């Protein structure tokens, strides 16, 4: 600092410096406001070519995100292709209008719930004839099945076989279309409200959702409290009707459609802890009542001594489920990189407890390219009615399911993303991931042949997601 070495009046000099500092502060404030984009003016977007320094979308902006997912499970299981188109319009008055459209195509095979066996297995069932072109009729492992019309009825006998020591799979294909729209607006400078509606339609399942939320900024916008309520109504329309709990597979299903109603409340607080760190804590409570079983999934009834399958019954699940979770997420700017670190603990009344931890690091490679390695760990305990099989001669429990999603397992996701600046305000991105579930492959004290068979049906999946996000 050289305040007094010249002949100029020190007081005048200090005044000029003060004026200069004021202008500098004003410029910095102006730049901050432009970056924050929350002033509600309709100035054009600040174009920042550095991807990692691009500001959040501001007023008078459209953001288009078009992407596609390719998903494939090993062992000739599920394959999915899912294009998604998302648009958000940020209006000059602070409102945001959004729309999202999804189209899924699913093909492949999924475990039918039966245990493997040391002998070939044949699965016979009664199906509605009009549905046999889309419903489970064969397995990838066996290479095909048969459907035989029952004369004078609307039903047919379906039969498919699975080789010995093979996880029984049932093939399927389906499409899903989903769309949802939302509106968010400022009730006052510190309070934002939002509403949303959505629908998802599959051949055998329809879901409607609605949500309402409020967010309130406090403490110079360093703290945000939020509360949202979600409602969902699902209609299950199984191809062959809804089976009764523990109904035999090889029997005519009398049940029609069934429904499930879900409510959810999410309360959260986000807090700026420092210039480089924002954190968020959410508590989520939801409850579901209605049909929550898988209408195509069965459970093997095995011989108590040999372990051989004697019969196959449709599964049974409780009609009520309450879920609670707490989530802690963080965004940390560490030098030029941005880290995303989160943990979630989950508990539900079916007996599942889970822990999820995710970490990713967005690393710039020059101004127009970044990479983002990511890792996710997941562990869950089993639902209290999960079982690989039922033992013949024992009393039936109230509920039983062999769905691996209700079993005890760990899952690890390893992946990475690359983002590239395209055009002036666009980003092209590709993300690849490997998702692998691991768990116990055998059961202690399993009867006979089952002690030597691999009962775990967890998945290993590879997914690739790519898309283009444009800001205009």
């Amino acid at each position: 600092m050289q305040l007094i070495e010249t002949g100029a009046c020190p007081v005048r000099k200090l005044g000029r410096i003060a004026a200069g500092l004021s202008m500098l502060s004003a410029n910095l404030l102006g730049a901050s406001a432009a970056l924050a984009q929350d002033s509600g003016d309709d100035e054009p977007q600040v174009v920042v070519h550095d991807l990692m320094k691009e500001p959040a979308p501001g007023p008078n902006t459209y953001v288009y995100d078009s992407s596609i997912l390719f998903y494939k499970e090993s062992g000739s299981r599920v394959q999915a292709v899912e294009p998604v188109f998302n648009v958000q319009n940020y209006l000059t008055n602070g409102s945001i209008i959004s729309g999202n459209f999804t189209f899924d195509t699913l093909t492949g095979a999924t475990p039918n719930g039966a245990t493997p066996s040391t002998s070939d297995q044949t699965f016979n069932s009664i199906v509605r004839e009009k549905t046999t072109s889309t419903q489970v009729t064969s397995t990838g492992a066996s290479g095909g099945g048969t459907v035989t019309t029952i004369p004078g009825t609307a039903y047919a006998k379906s039969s498919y076989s699975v080789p010995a020591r093979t996880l029984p799979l049932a093939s399927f294909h389906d499409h899903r279309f989903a769309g949802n729209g939302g509106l968010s607006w400022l009730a006052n400078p510190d309070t934002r409200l939002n509403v949303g509606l959505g629908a998802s339609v599959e051949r055998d399942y329809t879901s409607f959702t609605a949500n309402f939320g409020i967010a309130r900024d406090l403490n110079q916008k360093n703290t945000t409290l939020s509360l949202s309520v979600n409602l969902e109504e699902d209609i299950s329309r199984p191809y062959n009707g809804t089976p009764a709990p523990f109904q035999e597979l090889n029997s005519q299903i009398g049940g029609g459609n069934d429904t499930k109603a879900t409510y959810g409340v999410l309360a959260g607080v986000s807090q700026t802890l420092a210039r480089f760190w924002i954190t968020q804590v959410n508590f989520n409570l939801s409850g579901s009542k209605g049909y929550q079983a898988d209408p195509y999934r069965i459970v093997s009834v095995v011989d108590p001594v040999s372990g051989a399958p004697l019969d196959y019954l449709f599964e049974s699940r409780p009609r009520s489920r309450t879920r609670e979770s707490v989530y802690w997420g963080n965004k940390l700017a560490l030098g030029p990189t941005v880290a995303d670190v989160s943990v979630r603990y989950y508990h539900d009344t079916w007996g599942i407890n889970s822990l999820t931890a995710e970490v990713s690091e967005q690393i710039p490679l020059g101004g127009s390219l970044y990479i983002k390695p990511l890792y996710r760990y997941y562990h869950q305990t089993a639902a209290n009615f999960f079982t690989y099989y039922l033992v013949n001669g024992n009393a039936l429990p109230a509920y039983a399911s062999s769905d691996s999603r209700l079993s005890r397992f760990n899952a690890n996701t390893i992946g990475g993303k690359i983002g590239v600046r395209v055009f002036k305000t666009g980003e092209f991105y590709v993300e690849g991931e490997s998702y692998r579930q691991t768990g116990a492959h055998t059961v202690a004290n399993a009867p006979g042949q089952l002690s030597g068979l691999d009962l775990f049906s967890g998945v290993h999946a590879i997914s690739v997601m790519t898309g283009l996000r444009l800001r205009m």
Partner: protein
Amino acid sequence: MIRKVILALGLTLLGGCAHVGVKPWQRDILARNAMALDSEGNLSGYHDHIYFSKEGSTGGRNASGGGCGCN
């Protein structure tokens, strides 16, 4: 148990919030899109859908997860 932990955490956070944070002119880094709590757009939806259809848990970051017959 979860509710008690959340209540305690929430009260602690709220109690300390008034003394924590940044001034408006210090928001340059926080205002970046990369620092948004959910900056992944469509990719977040894909992740939620995959995990919802393959695991027994859902929720947390947001209330999504339902809306299909995949679980």
